[in-house]
């Protein structure tokens, strides 16, 4: 006997993600899922964002890593609520892990939740966490061919931050063809060129973020 199912394999995760979204919305928290390969600058971006918005927006952070709490310790020093999730070998955060984290954060006193996913351009693309926006950080040393190699991630991103632009004089990276490739399959994407190290053009990202927050 054949049984038609026609169900998304990740349906269970999608349902949990929806529950997270409702929990976030009921607490007026705007959540951003930060995605990138290891070393592209997720933690640096979080630190730069906290620095820019201190006293203006109440920020909370979820740190996802395979192991260690190094990132959470660095961020904790900034005086924002931070929760570390260790996936114990898992290559991505899923909605269930995020739910546990949400229940351990003071959501009532958070306006912007930055979720640092595990550094990986493949798996986190498939697993929604309940976030409002997916933001992908791609850095100059990684090369400009990444949209072709990891199309799903670039296709799903609401914004792409090209980080480490201070290294452009030393490395080969064609920003125009990189941006054109992303736009070809993701017309609505916002692309920013920043450097977390020098603070260059960080304000453009912050302005976009504030606009998103005001729409909340």
């Amino acid at each position, binding site marked *: 006997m054949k049984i038609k199912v026609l169900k998304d394999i990740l349906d269970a995760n999608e349902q949990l993600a929806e529950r997270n979204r409702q929990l976030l919305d009921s607490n007026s928290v705007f959540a951003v899922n930060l995605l990138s390969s290891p070393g592209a600058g997720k933690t640096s971006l979080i630190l730069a964002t906290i620095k820019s918005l201190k006293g203006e927006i109440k920020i909370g952070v979820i740190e996802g890593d395979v192991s260690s709490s190094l990132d959470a310790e660095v961020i904790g020093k900034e005086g924002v609520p931070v929760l570390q999730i260790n996936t114990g070998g898992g290559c991505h955060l899923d909605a269930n892990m995020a739910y546990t984290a949400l229940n351990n954060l003071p959501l009532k006193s958070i306006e912007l939740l930055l979720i640092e996913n595990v550094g990986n351009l493949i798996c986190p693309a498939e697993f929604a966490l309940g976030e409002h926006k997916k933001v992908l950080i791609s850095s100059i040393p990684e090369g400009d061919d990444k949209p072709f190699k990891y199309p799903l991630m670039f296709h799903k991103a609401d914004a792409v931050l090209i980080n480490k632009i201070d290294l452009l004089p030393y490395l080969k990276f064609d920003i125009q063809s990189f941006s054109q490739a992303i736009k070809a399959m993701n*017309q609505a994407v916002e692309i920013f060129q920043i450097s977390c190290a020098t603070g260059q053009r960080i304000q453009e990202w912050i302005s976009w973020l504030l606009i998103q927050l005001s729409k909340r």
Partner: protein
Amino acid sequence: MHELAITQSMLDLVLEQAEKAGAMEVGRINLVIGEMSGVVEECVKFYFDFISKGTLAEKAALSFLMVPTMARCRDCNESFELKEFDWACPYCQGNNMEIVAGKELFLESIEVE
């Protein structure tokens, strides 16, 4: 590595459907996988052998329908397969396209006894 989580979700879904139908055994699992999902068939099979042991689906054959990435050009409205490193419309050379297939990741059907 994400194949493990995906295979586990797939198995949960298969078992839920099989139990609902009062099945004794799952003979075949028909999956539809888009190329963009990056899911590797061999990898799913490998994990499935391990995690399905002792369940109704342990003897099930996995069948994969792989879907190529297809795009539609928003400028000239033509549809075409999106090839690696060639993200322009082959008809009008435009680069404003919509992905119309290739993101699939679903359980089409199961065959049970």
